[in-house]
């Protein structure tokens, strides 16, 4: 139409001349925040990211994202105590996302599909000795290799895995899974030397011309206490007990087994005893449930299996198939003290699970500082000795496999920096993506998918895996429960809710604010489900 009447009839598009952006006093800015799961993961996994990939069914990409931080997803998907789920914001909505289950699903799928690890970086001609093939050692070796260094991994045992193999019972971690992942791990080009115990790390380093060393020797020495007992009394420690079971020559324990201690190892020992045929497995612990160091889920499963507890009790004597327990009470500070009351507990054997110590004799020729039986390390896991790093149970920290894997990774990067003669780079963390920043209306309520548990009967008598995995459908469902806290997941809300059409799609899931027209109303930020938009004041 050319002959439009003046003023009363207008052509489309003419409003673009009116740049309403000038009204704005605040502007929306897209941000990435630290999701609580990532924040809580000791292995430093980018959980939110691999869940994002898993949500679209792209499991290999998800797995590849996963193994950038953790080379043992199938293992961790079983034995990790998943602090990520404890931290998950979804807890406040319905239930945490089953991150651990999805991790295991991805790990198992990778084994099934034979996905291989990424190729190492070009050779740096630097040599690193890794002592101990437990979680920290394996992790360190893996990351060092991928960084292009030559790695020799030594361990006194006959097989890889350390405590994962010799401490954790098979019903929690099937050996084929462990073998598959450790095998794939070392296949990235790690020189493995088993049945070799390092007695003098300095000499080992010199002879092998290693530029740096990582100590992942773990805590293999069972603590013992003197218990008055008769000859007939059968007393052994949990570490040895579990190691023997793992090696396939389980000791005879009899019908009634008592386990002394309150950690996860105590539970493992008791549950293993049940599976070895003990009709009674009793755990004796000097404090109460609240103060028990073992993880709650483990205890629940144990009680489930018929393990019984003797809370607030200590073993004072063990004679003739009978243990004399002293009843304890907790004082004001919560420490147990004897009451002078005693009772008897019939037992054919007593397993001591009173904690482990680290054997650091290999350090005697070095000037590495050892304090309270463990190696002092810096933030990058560097010990005081030149080029010596350590991690896992050998350093001051909570002792879990996941933490050990995190140590291994951190140490690897520390070593990498050291070898390059640089200071280790500390990446600043994003601000935490808190629940308050979420607009949860957009998330439909959905219950968590529980992993199907084997029926109890079977569980008590065998070492079959207790906890089953997720079907693909369940895993997908579970992954899609992720709220993607603090990180855009392309829901198009900002694009749709802008009253001024001032949000642009700029391709591959990214958005931009058209500042020519954005009036700064803030609806996009308010309606962003995951809190990935901040409103920042305009500088006037």
């Amino acid at each position, binding site marked *: 139409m050319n002959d439009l009447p003046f003023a009363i009839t207008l052509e489309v598009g003419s409003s673009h001349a009116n740049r309403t952006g000038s009204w704005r006093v605040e502007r929306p800015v897209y941000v990435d925040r630290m999701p609580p799961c990532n924040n809580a993961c000791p292995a430093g996994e980018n959980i939110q990211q691999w869940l994002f990939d898993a949500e679209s069914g792209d499991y290999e990409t998800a797995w590849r994202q996963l193994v950038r931080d953790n080379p043992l997803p199938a293992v961790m998907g079983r034995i990790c105590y998943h602090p990520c789920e404890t931290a998950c914001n979804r807890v406040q909505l319905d239930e945490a996302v089953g991150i651990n289950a999805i991790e295991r699903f991805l790990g198992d799928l990778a084994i099934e599909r034979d996905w291989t690890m990424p190729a190492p970086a070009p050779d740096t001609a630097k040599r690193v000795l890794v002592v101990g093939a437990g979680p920290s050692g394996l992790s360190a070796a893996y990351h060092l290799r991928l960084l292009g260094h030559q790695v020799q991994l030594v361990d006194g045992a006959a097989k890889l895995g350390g405590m994962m193999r010799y401490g954790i019972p098979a019903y929690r971690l099937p050996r084929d899974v462990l073998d598959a992942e450790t095998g794939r791990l070392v296949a990235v080009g790690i020189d493995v030397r088993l049945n070799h115990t390092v007695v003098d790390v300095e000499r080992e380093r010199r002879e092998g011309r290693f530029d740096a060393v990582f100590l992942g020797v773990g805590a293999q020495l069972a603590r013992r206490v003197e218990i008055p007992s008769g000859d007939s009394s059968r007393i052994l420690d949990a570490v040895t007990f579990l190691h023997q079971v793992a090696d396939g020559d389980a000791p005879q324990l009899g019908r009634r087994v008592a386990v002394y201690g309150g950690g996860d190892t105590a539970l493992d020992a008791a549950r293993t005893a049940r599976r070895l045929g003990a009709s009674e497995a009793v755990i004796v612990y000097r404090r109460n449930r609240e103060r028990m160091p073992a993880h709650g889920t483990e205890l629940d499963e144990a009680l489930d299996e018929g393990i019984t507890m003797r809370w607030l009790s200590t073993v004072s004597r063990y004679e003739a198939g009978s243990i004399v327990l002293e009843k304890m009470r907790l004082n004001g500070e919560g420490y147990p003290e004897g009451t002078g009351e005693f009772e008897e507990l019939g037992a054919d054997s007593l397993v001591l699970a009173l904690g482990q110590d680290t054997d650091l004799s290999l350090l005697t020729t070095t000037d590495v500082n050892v304090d309270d039986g463990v190696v002092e390390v810096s933030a990058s896991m560097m010990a005081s000795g030149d080029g010596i790093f350590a991690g896992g149970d050998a350093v001051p920290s909570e002792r879990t496999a996941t933490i050990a894997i995190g140590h291994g990774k951190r140490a690897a990067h520390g070593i990498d920096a050291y070898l390059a003669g640089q200071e280790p780079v500390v990446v600043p963390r994003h601000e935490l993506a808190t629940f308050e920043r979420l607009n949860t209306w957009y998330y439909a309520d959905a219950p968590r998918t529980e992993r199907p548990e084997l029926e109890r009967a079977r569980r008590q008598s065998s070492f079959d895996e207790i906890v089953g995995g997720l079907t693909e459908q369940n895993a997908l469902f579970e992954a899609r429960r992720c709220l993607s806290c603090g990180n855009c997941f392309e829901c*198009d809300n900002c694009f749709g809710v802008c009253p001024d059409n*001032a949000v642009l799609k700029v391709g591959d899931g990214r958005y931009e604010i058209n500042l020519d027209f954005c009036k700064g109303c803030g609806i996009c930020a308010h309606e962003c489900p995951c809190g990935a938009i901040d409103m920042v004041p305009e500088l006037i």
Partner: protein
Amino acid sequence: MTRQPVHFYQVGSFAVGNRLLDRAERTIQSDEARTDSLDCGHRACQGCGEALGARYALDAAMRATSGQLIAVNATGCLEVFSTPYPETSWRIAWLHSLFGNAPAVATGVAAALKVKGRAEVRVVAQAGDGGTVDIGFGCLSGMFERNDDVLFICYDNEAYMNTGVQRSGATPPAARTATTEAVGPDPGNVFGQGKDMARLAMAHGIAYVATATVADLHDLEGKVERAMLHHGARYLHILVPCPLGWGSASNETIHVARLAQETGLFPVYEAEYGVVTGVSAIRHRTPVDEYLSLQGRYRHLFGEHGRPDIIARIQDLADENIARYGLLDPSRVLSTNGAQS
């Protein structure tokens, strides 16, 4: 209801889009190729709910008619902020005549299209609450009664905003406006009988009547699409919060609209031929004070000289709606999202 349920618990249910869904299953607003019927550069206030509602509804209508659409607009905020000479924000064929005659003008447009044999072109008329329930009511009722082929959309912001927030026939009880000040023993608007326009429309027995808010886009777009499947007179009543007139934060426009629904004060449902056929159930029932306290127009009900008695009366109104429409009955939910089915 015909909407395909979305099975993704993460977001697909309620968010504008979802990368995990086929384009066809996402909202029209998530599509870069949407019409943007109401284009940027318009002069609506920050966070204007009406600007949002108009783009939502007309883009959906454009999609439903493959772009064969003519819109008639009554006088009011929408008209003033969208077409101040020399700039128009409309990307569609658009006509503004007067405040009270949009339904009749639309009838004329429809008649002209019919006589010219252009059946493919559809007509939408739109007005604010004043242009609908007050000054335009006569023409609207006539259009309904004749069953002219027009979809009439009311963008309800519950007062005369264009002239400075005066009370309209759609202003809720106790709300402060420039002509119902928050003073005296009965502050704010009277507790009248109200004028339930959607039910009045249903009383005409027309093919399709629905209510919606800017807070549930899937629902709103679905209703526009279904409305366009019918011929004859149809009515869509959309709640569009006005930050200026309601005294709410500009970034809470959608949030406030959502609470209007979640409290039960604004029942969201649809009806065919005078019979309610679907209801959007309340997902998280919310007491009215949570809704009221976000709005300056109700400020006089709170604080030390607050009026819990009035809040209680408003809660009663919400509860009546909940009972009347079964707003807590999940089986009645329009399955516009994956939370159901």
